[in-house]
């Protein structure tokens, strides 16, 4: 029997009061975005917002609690955007969304920073167990950035992986690490680079003593990319069943899976809130369609980050995920 775990991939919307307070304090322009060395007033505002989203998750009963990544003005590009050896340039489109981030341009060695670990330390104070770390996967972070230092695509990918491993190594104890890899779908690696991805992912995964989930989204992986990714030393690969259930199912049927699995079943980009019963039907649908479905752990999550949603709908999604898993567990007991 698989262990169902309700979680999210992080990157939450700010509570509405924090949206106003932070925009008043920081401003609206490119130069006003997070730099990594914000003063005490900003830190205090983010602390209060973090406390709120941690409480939303624990109150809802999620099995894994994330820090929320509320400071990540540049979304998945954040860990580079705040790095000293990275210059942020123009505002560029975030995948196919109506969202934008500052283009991070790597100018020198990607040395240890510690920015993400500091956030997790703050969250750890409020989370007794089930703390989950979130990082961009090495391929996506390299894809979102521009390299003006390493000079070679493969070398850059591994440099980003080494950097992320260094960041992860500084984390407090976490139960799970989600590595978000939308670029593996959205701009799949070319031949040659695709075989480097598992090694890069493993580099990051090996840095933590935790279960690691690699989570691609906005469709399904090209089958070759998926086959390569299974070589990575991770516990689970995620599947975005909201965007494309047929192609994801095909990959699972043709190539099998890791011991654990993450199912993106709630739409992180639509305000329509799924009923817990409907979520569980989707879990069953996936398992019913697989010849062998004996996963140790099954993560039930939104397919994407949830910063796209109004705050109240984000809260409702978190509750729906938690309620779905709670309901499934009750049904098993009964």
């Amino acid at each position: 029997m698989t262990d169902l775990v309700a979680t999210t991939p992080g990157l939450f919307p700010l509570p509405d009061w924090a949206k106003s307070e932070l925009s008043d304090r920081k401003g609206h322009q490119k130069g006003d975005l997070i730099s990594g060395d914000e003063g005490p007033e900003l830190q205090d505002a983010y602390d209060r917002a973090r406390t709120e989203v941690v409480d939303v998750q624990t109150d809802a009963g999620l099995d894994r609690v994330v820090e929320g990544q509320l400071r990540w003005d540049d979304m998945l590009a954040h860990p580079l955007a705040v790095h000293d050896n990275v210059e942020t340039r123009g505002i560029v489109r975030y995948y196919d969304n109506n969202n934008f981030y500052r283009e991070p341009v790597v100018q020198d060695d990607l040395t240890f920073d510690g920015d993400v670990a500091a956030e997790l330390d703050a969250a750890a104070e409020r989370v007794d167990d089930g703390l989950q770390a979130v990082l961009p996967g090495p391929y996506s972070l390299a894809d979102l950035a521009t390299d003006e230092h390493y000079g070679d695509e493969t070398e850059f990918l591994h440099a980003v992986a080494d950097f992320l491993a260094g960041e992860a190594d500084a984390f407090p104890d976490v139960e799970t690490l989600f590595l978000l890899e939308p670029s593996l779908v959205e701009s799949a690696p070319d031949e040659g680079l695709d075989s480097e991805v598992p090694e890069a992912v493993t580099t990051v995964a090996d840095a933590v003593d935790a279960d690691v989930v690699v989570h691609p989204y906005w469709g399904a992986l090209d089958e070759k990319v998926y086959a390569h990714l299974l070589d990575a030393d991770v516990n689970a690969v995620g599947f975005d069943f909201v965007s494309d259930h047929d192609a994801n199912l095909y990959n699972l049927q043709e190539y099998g899976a890791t011991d654990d699995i993450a199912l993106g079943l709630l739409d992180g980009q639509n305000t329509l809130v799924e009923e817990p019963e409907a979520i569980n039907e989707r879990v069953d649908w996936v398992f019913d369609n697989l010849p062998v479905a004996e996963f140790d752990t099954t993560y039930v999550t939104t397919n994407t980050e949830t910063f796209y949603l109004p705050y109240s709908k984000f809260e409702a999604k978190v509750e729906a995920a938690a309620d779905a898993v709670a309901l499934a567990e009750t049904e098993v007991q009964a």
Partner: protein
Amino acid sequence: MTTNENRDQFRPEAHPNDHFLLTTVVGSYPKPKWLNRAKELYEDPDHEFDAEDWAEAKDDACRLITDEHERAGLDVVVDGEMRRNEMVEFFAHRIEGYEFNGPVKVWGHNYFDKPSVVDDVAYDESWLVDEYEFTADAAERPVKVPITGPYTLANWSFNEAYEDDEALAYDLADLVNEEIEKLVDAGARYIQIDEPALATTPDDHAIVGECLERIADSIEEDVRIGLHVCYGDYSRIYPEILDYPVDEFDLELANGDYEQLDVFTADEFTKDLALGVVDAHTAEVEPVEEIKENVRKGLEVVPPERLVISPDCGVKLLPREVAFGKMRNMVQAVREVEAELDAGEIAVPATSQRSAADD
């Protein structure tokens, strides 16, 4: 000289040159600072500034900006969208089936109230007839009405109620058609459909085409319908968009330094071109000479009788004096180019190409 009745219905009687390149704006314009202040007072429950005061403030702002457009010398004016907050939100508040759940992030700390479609959309109160009638009354010159297009209204909303965004867009297109019929009844002759979302999802150009078929249905031929598409990879939608039932395409090309001009000369541009000649994203007023060069770029695509001149996009994010400077220089540049055309000093590549092709 060849004429273009649909466009030339807007030619001023006292136009100084034989040639006429219609000048206009895309729509939005910086709001006077006092209007934003008035809004804050209106939203402050402790302040006595009430709904009537707020309505008066908006009326005043409309008169002011319409007049500012006329002072800049524009042939067709807009009220600068003084009554509108944001291009989806304004309409979503007036369409049944929409609800609002709070602001969402665009980038950094810039947010917008992205609405959710929670039920079948339906026409309720008129969206723009009052706005049009007020502006037409305040203006000496003809007035253009910009409307956010159905594809963008669908694409920039959360869709909870429809099978897909395409089905939602078609229902919204029927509502836009209904609104345009009311605007035409009220006297409007120049409608501009804004579809910025098409620039980000060019593969959907056929959906936008079907929307426009519904919008143009039963609208009289002599009512001018334009389509504004913001900066994007135009090669992915051109020449397919030439099949759209519109009179004019309003394109953002100055921002990209006309690098995409070749896209529009590769296949004959069979509609009117509303060419962006000043950049809506830079806060420097372009000199007249520079704008004249940009206007001449338009003549590489279409002959003078099918050319309309405007800024690249809405200018609401610019400082107001910069926006005005751009309009004024733009009009001056156009009048000078017209005079040079009258004098035969400017070659018109679009015409000669076409003659050669006809031979």
